Each structure stands twice: as structure tokens, then as C-alpha cells.
């Protein structure tokens, strides 16, 4: 795809939980305008990598965003720098309404006059959220919660969006809907780093993919190439 500037660069990223090394010195780049996906089995280190980028866990190695080193920057500042987040398990606030959930994501934004435009964009993409505005987040269905999670990430207006397993626990039709929205968001100019177990769906929309196996990058290539790769096919796409 269009190879712009390097937006996110990861060098020798190592993440350990006590004695267990979850990520063993991986390096990769995400260019502006891309959809990059990390796929792999449970415990391959996908989510840990994402958590490192989000600033939620300490890591060894270097992560830079737009050339700026992100070591020891707290998670909330990283979001404010322009990395929007769709956390694992959605992280919807059940005691806040849909609208309040969306509002919360604008916390560190100063451009108040732009908010209505962004609400409108979110409601255009997910009309269902507009209907449910006054409803508490906890009363939404799984699919609606995932829409809200993506909507919230849009409200924080990042240059880049990190998604951790957006397909988790969703019916196939909803997964397709979410993924087509992701492609739309990407075409509107947001770079996406997507962690997925649903390798098939993820690789179909991805410009490039990385296959993680027990903390190291096992295969890499364009989405199309990985979809056709027999080794990937056997291990992650169900033969």
C-alpha cells in the first residue's frame, strides 16, 4: 500500500511477566496509512505487545511514535499524543451512558468546537449508537459495545488506532460489520494496528501482517501473501 512515513516503530521489544518472557525482542514498523495486523495463537505475545505500546506495562527495547520515544510516558498521555485505543474486552463503562462513554474519550482534547462533528461521524458510522445514546453502557449487547468501543476510539481522534481483539465474542455477521468499518476508518486516514485471533478476517483487510509465535515474529508479509502461505494456513486459518 502507500508507504508513507514511519508512524510507529518498535525495536527489540521485550516484555516479561516475572520469569516468563512473553515477547522476545521483536521489531517492526507501522507506516502511515497502513493496517498492520499481529496474529497468532493464545499466549503468542500479541496483546502484550499492544499493552507495551499503550504504556500499560513496562518493557525493554524502544518504541517510538512519530519519532518520539514513548518510554515511561503514562498511558493517558500516550492516548493524548494520538494513539486511540480499543482495549481488550472493550472496556465499556457500564455505569455511564453511551454518550458519556463517547464524551469521556475527548478528555484531553482542547478543540471543543470540533466535538459535534466527531459525534456526528460516530453516529453516521454506527446509527445504532445514536438510538442508544441515553442508555447505560452496561445494558448494550456485545456488538453494540464493540461499536461503542470503536466509536470512543474515533472520538479521541488519534492518528493511529490500536485494537485488541475486536472480534472477540461476536457473531460472524457483526465481525464482518466491524471489520468493514475499520477499513472505512483506515481509508479516512487513520493508521490501524490490529491484534486478532481471527486471522482470516484480519489478514483480508490488512496491508501487512506479522505472525507471532511464542514471543517472536515467525512470518511476515502482505495480508494477501500471508493468506496464501501454506504454513499460516495450516496453523491459523484452519487448513
Amino acid at each position, binding site marked *: 500500500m502507500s508507504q508513507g512515513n514511519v508512524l510507529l516503530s518498535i525495536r527489540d521489544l521485550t516484555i516479561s511477566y516475572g520469569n516468563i518472557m512473553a515477547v522476545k525482542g521483536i521489531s517492526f514498523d507501522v507506516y502511515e496509512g497502513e493496517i498492520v495486523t499481529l496474529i497468532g495463537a493464545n499466549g503468542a505475545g500479541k496483546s502484550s505487545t499492544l499493552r507495551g505500546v499503550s504504556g500499560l506495562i513496562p518493557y525493554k527495547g524502544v518504541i517510538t511514535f512519530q519519532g518520539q520515544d514513548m518510554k515511561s510516558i503514562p498511558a493517558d498521555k500516550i492516548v493524548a499524543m494520538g494513539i486511540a*485505543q480499543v482495549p481488550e474486552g472493550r472496556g465499556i*463503562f457500564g455505569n455511564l451512558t453511551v454518550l*458519556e462513554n463517547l464524551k*469521556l474519550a475527548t478528555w*484531553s482534547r482542547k478543540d471543543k468546537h470540533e*466535538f459535534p462533528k466527531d459525534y*456526528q461521524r460516530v453516529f453516521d458510522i454506527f446509527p445504532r449508537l445514536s438510538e442508544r445514546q441515553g442508555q447505560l453502557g452496561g445494558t448494550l449487547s456485545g456488538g453494540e459495545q464493540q461499536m461503542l468501543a470503536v466509536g470512543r476510539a474515533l472520538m479521541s481522534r488519534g492518528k493511529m488506532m490500536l485494537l485488541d481483539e475486536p472480534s472477540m465474542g461476536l457473531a460472524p455477521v457483526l465481525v464482518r460489520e466491524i471489520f468493514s468499518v475499520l477499513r472505512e476508518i483506515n481509508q479516512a486516514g487513520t493508521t490501524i494496528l490490529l491484534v486478532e485471533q481471527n486471522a482470516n478476517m484480519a489478514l483480508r483487510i490488512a496491508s501487512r501482517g506479522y505472525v507471532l509465535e511464542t514471543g517472536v515474529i515467525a512470518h511476515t508479509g502482505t495480508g494477501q501473501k500471508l493468506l496464501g502461505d501454506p504454513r499460516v494456513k495450516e496453523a491459523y486459518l484452519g487448513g
Partner: protein
Amino acid sequence: MSKESSDNGNWKNWLSRQWAKIVTNRKLLPVLLVIGLLLSFAIPQFGLLNQYIVLILIYVGINIILSTSLNLVNGYMGEFSVGHAGFMAVGAYISAILTTKIIPDSLAPWLFPLVVFAGGTGAALIGLMVAIPSFKTRGDYLAIVTLAFLMIVKSLIENIEVIGGPRGIPGITRLTTLPWTFIWVVIAVWVIRNFVYSKFGRGVLSIREDEIASDLMSVNSRQVKMLTFVISSFFAGVAGALFAHILQFISPRVFDIIKSTDILIMVYLGGIGSIAGSILGALIFTILLEVLRPLGMWRMVLMPLVLVVLMIYRPRGIMGLREFRWFVPGYDLIATNLWRKKKEAKDVSTS
């Protein structure tokens, strides 16, 4: 016969509709506030109620300030502070020292609001000092830190001779009147209600739910926690100042863990995460304590029993997470309307 009953039904319907109109009419609020203020002046002035009941009303007011402010930390934010009596003590001592030692008696009634404000500010500063180390870590540390804080405050006061040591400060002028209590209650409820429904309030609620997710929404959780704690301690200090000037005598023993427990009971009785609940909790608790006074020591057995029964049948308290309509701001529907208009326009143009 049937016509009569249907008329009766209509009439009841009409009444309930009118009632709903009154209850949801926000314009009525200033009117009620003015009536309340006038009443608070008139009652002591013309002796409409006896002294004892006026005293109880003042205690209810002070307890409302205490419970709403503690609810901010324990209910809305989901942390657990047991140090409220300590902040009360700070406010009480600062204000009592000001009125007994520094401000001349003739000026004291005029400067009383400032004195109360000073008590609150002192408590807020101490609150900030407690908040800085406590919120460096996550989890249940606040309960332990505030417990330690309460003990430190108590033993500090006991050991400073200038402010009376364990004997306390006697002979404080009775400056807390019903109008002042009313005004401070309104200020406290108004500030806390506006805080809860502000951007920061949303942050507070999100932290209770899931702190990591709230960080990922760019919420500066440390800042939010500190601000919440400082506001909460400010009003504890205000309540302490009012308390000192109605009791007319304060000593370290007044502000012990039992006092903190009382406030906790009010909060959990009324319901966490609800201003209306805190008001109800304070009202019921204060009145119940007075009604049960003839039982002597037994009321200290009965109150916890009431709490246990309540926790079994209504674990979230009386109002738990619900709110009076008046406290909830009108829904911000600008964005919706914008969207709807655009969609309608689109539908018309496509059809």
C-alpha cells in the same frame, strides 16, 4: 357507578400528571431554595420549632455535608476512605482557633463564613498531602493510609498543648445557625452535584468501573483522584467548622474512628454514588439516633443491626446509584439533534 369510578381514575391521573410536572420542573428549584432560606431564618427568629428540634436540624445539615462529600470518594470513585473524621477535625480546630484566639468576638459573627471557608481550605490542603502518596499506588491502600492519617491527626492534637491537648478547646461561641447551615448544605450539594455531572465526574465514574480502560480513554486518573479527594476533604473541613461552632466544645476524642464510622454508615445507608441517597442517609441516621436516644447504649447495638439488615435486603443502600430527577442535568442532546436533522435531510433528498 362506573362513570364515577372512571372520573375518579381521570382525576387521579390528572393529579399524578400534575405531580410529575411539579417534580420535574427545574424552575421550581430556586423558589424552593428561597423558601428554605426564609424558613431557616424564620424558625429560630419566631421560635416556630423548639430549640431541640432546631439543633437536630443543624446536625442533619452538617451530616448531609459529611455524607455527600464522603460519597464522592467512597461511592462515586469506589475507593475507601475512613479518614473523614480527621479532615473534620482539621476544619474544626482551624476554625475554633480562629474564633477563640484570633478574631475578636465582636467580629466573629460577621467573619463566620470566612472562618468556615478557612477550615475547609485547611482540610483540603491536608487532603492533598494525604492524596499525593495514597494515589501513587492502585488498590486498597487508601483505607490504610486514611486510617493512619486519622490516628496521626488525633495524636498530634492530643500532644499540642497550645490548642488544649487532650482537653480540647472549650468555650467556642455558638456561631452555627440554621441559616448558615442551610447555606453551606446548599453550597456543598450544589458543588458536588456539578462536579459529579462534569467532565471530571465522568472521569471519576469511569475510574470506579475500570481504571485501566479509563487511562486508555486519556483520562488523567491521578489528577481526577486527587481533585476528588481534595473536594471531599474540603467539605469535611467545612462540616467540622460548623460542628465545632454548634457543639461549642471540641476535643480529639470527638473525632475518632467512631465518627468516621458514623459517616460511613450514612453513606452506605443512603446509597453509594447518589447525592439524594447521601441526603436521605444523613437525615434518617440523625433522626434515628435521636429517636432511639431513650434506649441508651442499646442504640449502638441497634444501629449496626439496622445496617446489617439493610445490606442484606438493599445492598446498594436506599438510593444506590439512583438519583432524584432534580439532581440530574437536562440531557445534552445537541449532538443527537444535529445527527437527526442531517439524517432527515438525507432521507428527504434520497426519496
